[in-house]
């Protein structure tokens, strides 16, 4: 809501600049989006009197005008506006002036004719299209005839006012009005404010003979109408038009403008009906019936159902209650009798109606937040009285009341001790009472106990905590002390799961992978790739796009998306890991279970190439090295093994392994299937994904000290030819099993599968290290053990020792 600084000053004696006032409101009341003075940045824009208008000889739409701008000689200005006419008072941008958007106006020639400046439309001096009166939208604006040529135009158009744009939170419906703002400012500045309330002069017949309202008080706790006859529809006076366009409303005609003006002043939405268009004299506030239709003021057609509240006459709905009026009963230039509606509708209905019909209006916004149920008649009277003043209307006697349901005011007990205990302050009773009273609350004290009665207009205040907020903000948050919680000590420690997750990240970063955070919502396809076990997918009910519609059941695809993003930007070497949740759902459950996973993906080279180090593309064994090192860091108490997996559809069938602990599968790793990689538009990529939750849950080995033997170790190398299908794991397992008591380690140091070995065979070479912790080993003992192993390799695995 844009609120006028000048309007505020009419009621409150404030000695602050607009920017300071805005700052104060923001610090004490509601957020301020900005403060704008419409004339700011404009220069040399004055009133001009059009003395003559001639057609331009070389143009069918330009006119050559002589314009008096208060100087000795008139200016010749070429103007293309269709509505230019002799005798008009117009807005002239003089040579050297600056108009909207910082555009400078210079002397120029238009089709050969010199033009000293420009005659302006309102939009050209910064008005939004939405607020320019309809008749001037496509042409220049015509100022009142009593304007003085040569004067700056700003005051004529209200442009020297400052407009404070309030971003009102949902609880402060009362701030969506001048009166509400004034009441808050009165408390903030601790100044008195008197709000004017005009007397209505009733001159016509009794309304009861002309209008009967039948309102359902559950739908509309307040529903009232006044009738104003003999109304003359005309443009509003300038001051009213200025109030409206400065608040962001387009002036339309006196009757409609009055309803908007009263809404701005009182916060009470009003609607003006053309009474003569009613079918009959009865007005109903009721639920719509299925099948009913309504065309609203904006010419939108709406199918109604029984959730909607409508205003109806004897035949059909005439308004969508609290949202927008209907077209058939709207005010036109021919209207002579106006029925003014002032009502309060049930906020929940209005909110849903506005959503259902996608019609969010200033009225619906106010009803959703709650309108002052005790102020309906005041607003209605003020509107009726203005229609007498500005449209020569005759207000009929009495108000037609369809419902009159005013809630009891909130009466809230509050103790001074509680105030100070919650705010951390040391306020005195008198101070607290004064703050509450300055807001218009009634306070009765008994010792330190207060009983606070809250005016109905403040429908956001129900409990002591609400009062604490009022006290705190008016007292000033800057005045609160700055302390830290005291009381019983608590320990702040991470859980072992949290520690492990941190360790996981540090480990993988140490191994060269950058942490990525990808989207957990993905496409239906990607959500179910690289699955570690079967699961139902979990879909959003109303996704924004197919790209983010399904919850992921793997982390790898997010990383592949990231790699694709990098690849598309010519970043070739990408090494990423991500720790995050996957979402598995069992059939029949609405809610998925969440499992922590850890995944990595590398494309290009992990070790960056340098002038002394060639680039080496990532391969299976590099990603395996990372997984091994990471799992070593996690110190899982159990055998980690790797088994070829030829069956994952998204993975290379010959270069994929399952990762197992004690035979239990906790993840996979390997090369992404080239077909999958192609789909993602990425090159050769190696990935792993592990069930981090499983790692968290597994028993761990504690670090322990092992004496380093003082006795020398003896090594023996063994090279052998084995059939291709014999795996390293088999060989190492056999050596370890048969290696004897002193075998300390088996280390593979060479693999050869080239032309120098027979087809179907490969050559592997290992270093075996023997050591006795208690004495120096004798060579013979080692030789004996070694020969045993050689024999077993030959017998059990068909190895040829070389």
């Amino acid at each position: 809501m844009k609120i006028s600084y000048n309007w505020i000053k009419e009621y409150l004696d404030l000695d602050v600049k607009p920017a300071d006032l805005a700052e104060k409101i923001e610090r004490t009341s509601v957020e301020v989006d900005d403060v704008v003075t419409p004339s700011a940045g404009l220069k040399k824009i004055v009133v001009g009197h059009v003395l003559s208008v001639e057609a331009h000889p070389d143009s069918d739409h330009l006119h050559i005008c002589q314009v008096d701008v208060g100087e000795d000689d008139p200016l010749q200005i070429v103007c293309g506006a269709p509505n230019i006419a002799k005798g008009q008072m117009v807005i002239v941008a003089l040579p050297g002036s600056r108009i909207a958007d910082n555009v400078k106006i210079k002397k120029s020639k238009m089709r050969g004719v010199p033009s000293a400046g420009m005659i302006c439309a309102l939009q050209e001096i910064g008005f939004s299209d939405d607020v320019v009166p309809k008749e001037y939208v496509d042409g220049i604006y015509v100022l009142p005839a009593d304007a003085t040529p040569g004067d700056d135009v700003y005051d004529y158009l209200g442009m020297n006012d400052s407009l404070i744009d309030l971003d009102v939170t949902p609880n402060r419906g009362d701030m969506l009005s001048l009166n509400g703002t004034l009441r808050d400012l009165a408390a903030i500045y601790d100044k008195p404010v008197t709000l004017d309330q005009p007397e209505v002069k009733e001159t016509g017949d009794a309304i009861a003979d002309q209008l009967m309202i039948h309102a359902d008080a559950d739908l509309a706790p307040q529903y009232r109408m006044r009738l104003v006859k003999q109304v003359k529809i005309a443009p509003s006076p300038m001051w009213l038009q200025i109030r409206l366009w400065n608040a962001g409303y387009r002036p339309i005609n006196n009757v409609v403008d009055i309803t908007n003006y009263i809404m701005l002043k009182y916060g009470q939405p009003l609607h003006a009906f053309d009474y003569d268009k009613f079918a009959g004299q009865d007005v109903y506030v009721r639920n719509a019936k299925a099948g009913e239709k309504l065309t609203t003021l904006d010419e939108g057609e709406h199918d109604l159902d029984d959730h909607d509240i409508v205003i109806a006459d004897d035949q059909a709905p005439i308004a969508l209650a609290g949202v927008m009026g209907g077209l058939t009963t709207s005010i036109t230039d021919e209207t002579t009798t106006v029925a003014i509606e002032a009502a309060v509708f049930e906020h929940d209905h209005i909110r849903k109606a506005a959503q259902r019909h996608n019609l969010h209006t200033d009225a619906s916004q106010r009803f959703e937040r709650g309108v002052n149920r005790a102020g309906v008649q005041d607003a209605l009277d003020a509107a009726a009285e203005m229609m007498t003043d500005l449209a020569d209307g005759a207000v009929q006697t009495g108000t037609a009341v369809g419902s009159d349901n005013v809630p009891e005011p909130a009466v809230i007990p509050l103790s001074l001790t509680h105030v100070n205990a919650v705010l951390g302050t040391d306020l005195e009773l008198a101070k607290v009472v004064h703050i509450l009273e300055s807001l218009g609350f009634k306070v009765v004290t008994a010792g330190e106990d207060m009983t606070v009665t809250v005016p109905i207009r403040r429908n956001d205040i129900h409990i002591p905590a609400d009062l604490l907020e009022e006290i705190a903000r008016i007292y000033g948050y800057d005045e609160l002390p700055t302390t830290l919680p005291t009381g019983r000590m608590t320990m702040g420690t991470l859980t072992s799961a949290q520690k492990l997750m941190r360790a996981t990240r540090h480990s993988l970063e140490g191994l060269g992978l950058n942490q990525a955070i990808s989207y957990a919502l993905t496409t239906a396809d990607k959500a179910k790739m690289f699955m570690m076990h079967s699961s139902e997918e979990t879909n959003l009910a109303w996704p924004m796009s197919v790209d983010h519609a399904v919850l992921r059941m793997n982390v790898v695809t997010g990383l592949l998306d990231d790699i694709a993003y990098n690849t598309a930007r010519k970043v070739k070497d990408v090494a990423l890991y991500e720790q995050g949740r996957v979402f598995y759902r069992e059939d029949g459950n609405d809610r998925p279970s969440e499992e922590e996973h850890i995944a990595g993906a590398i494309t290009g080279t992990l070790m960056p190439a340098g002038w002394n180090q060639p680039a080496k593309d990532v391969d299976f064994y590099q990603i395996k090295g990372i997984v091994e090192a990471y799992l070593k860091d996690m110190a899982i108490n159990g055998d980690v093994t790797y088994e070829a997996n030829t069956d994952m559809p998204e993975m290379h069938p010959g270069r994929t392994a399952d990762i197992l602990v004690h035979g239990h599968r906790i993840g996979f790793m390997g090369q992404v299937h080239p077909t999958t990689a192609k789909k993602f538009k990425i090159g050769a990529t190696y990935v792993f994904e592990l069930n981090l939750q499983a790692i968290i849950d597994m028993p761990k080995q504690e670090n322990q000290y092992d004496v380093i033997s003082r006795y020398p170790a003896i090594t023996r190398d063994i090279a052998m030819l084995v059939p291709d299908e014999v795996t390293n794991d088999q060989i190492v397992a056999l050596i370890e099993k048969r290696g004897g008591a002193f075998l300390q380690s088996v280390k593979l140091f060479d693999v050869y599968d080239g032309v120098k070995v027979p087809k179907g065979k490969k050559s592997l070479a290992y270093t075996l290290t023997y050591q006795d912790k208690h004495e120096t080993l004798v060579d013979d003992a080692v030789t004996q053990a070694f020969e045993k192993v050689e024999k077993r390799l030959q017998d059990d695995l068909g190895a040829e020792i070389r």
Partner: protein
Amino acid sequence: MSLKDKLDELHQRGLAEIKKSTDLKDVNQVRVSLLGKKGPITEVLRGMRDLDAEERPKVGAFANEIRDDLTAALAKRREELENAILNARLANEKIDVTLPGTPVAKGEPHVIQQIIDQIEDLFLGMGYQVLSGPEVEEDKYNFEMMNLPKNHPARDMQDTFYITKEILMRTQTSPMQARTLEKHDFSQGPLKMISPGVVYRRDTDDPTHSHQFHQVEGLVIDKHITMADLKGTLQVLAHELFGDKFDVRLRPSYFPFTEPSVEADITCFNCGGKGCNVCKNTGWIEVLGAGMVHPNVLKMAGVDPDVYGGFAFGVGPDRFAMLKYGVDDIRNFYLNDVRFLTQFTKKG
């Protein structure tokens, strides 16, 4: 010539030869020729047999003295020559120390993770627990127990991804507050917790909006927690994340789960509080929402609001990172361009 004179002469000649030697081979030859078993000094000493018993020890001592001196001279010369050789070799080994070092593989934590870790560490130090809850939540915990009953207008403030009518992607990490409050045993001490995590909103991704982002909610409930404590806690947070020069101010706001509710602003990074276009000339930037926990929230979780109370706050690490580093597009956090990820390398 007496033996002594002979020794003198040998001494002088030996020293001269040592001085003349130009490489280690020479030095070795000189050593062998002077001090070897067939060398002149041995020869001279052999002649001592002919001396008086009285003379013998004197000459013997003298001969030893000369031999020691020559041995020392040889060692010295050897060292000189060795040093010269080493220096020559080292001179040859000179490299261009300005060539870049050999690259190593090194990964970086995500900038948002860094901020979350920093917040966690700060609050751990103040005795808070870190708790993380489910990302797919029940409407009950995400909204209802946060004092946002169905049809509450403020639900529109947080457009939500629903899965079913009752199941949704959490829009905030505060559901964990309700879950923890329900379970907490206050006889064991106050509840002090933060819950960091990913949250989701029905937003179209653009430079300032992301359908996925992060939040860290904080909650303290005890018998005597004040709004001044909230102010102090937020001040500590601002100082930790941004530096001691940053001030915090509170402004009224509205959240259904707190009352009073405040927004907290901190001193503008860009202008230090003087006013600029980043802070819309206010000198302040809005960074988080907070407030005193609404009695309804406590009541719904089975905590007596007449006895217990406290504060809650919610901060957005994404927004913090954007402000702190001037990141102009929130999507950078989720697209994982390596050139972005590797910009935030400062540790500690």
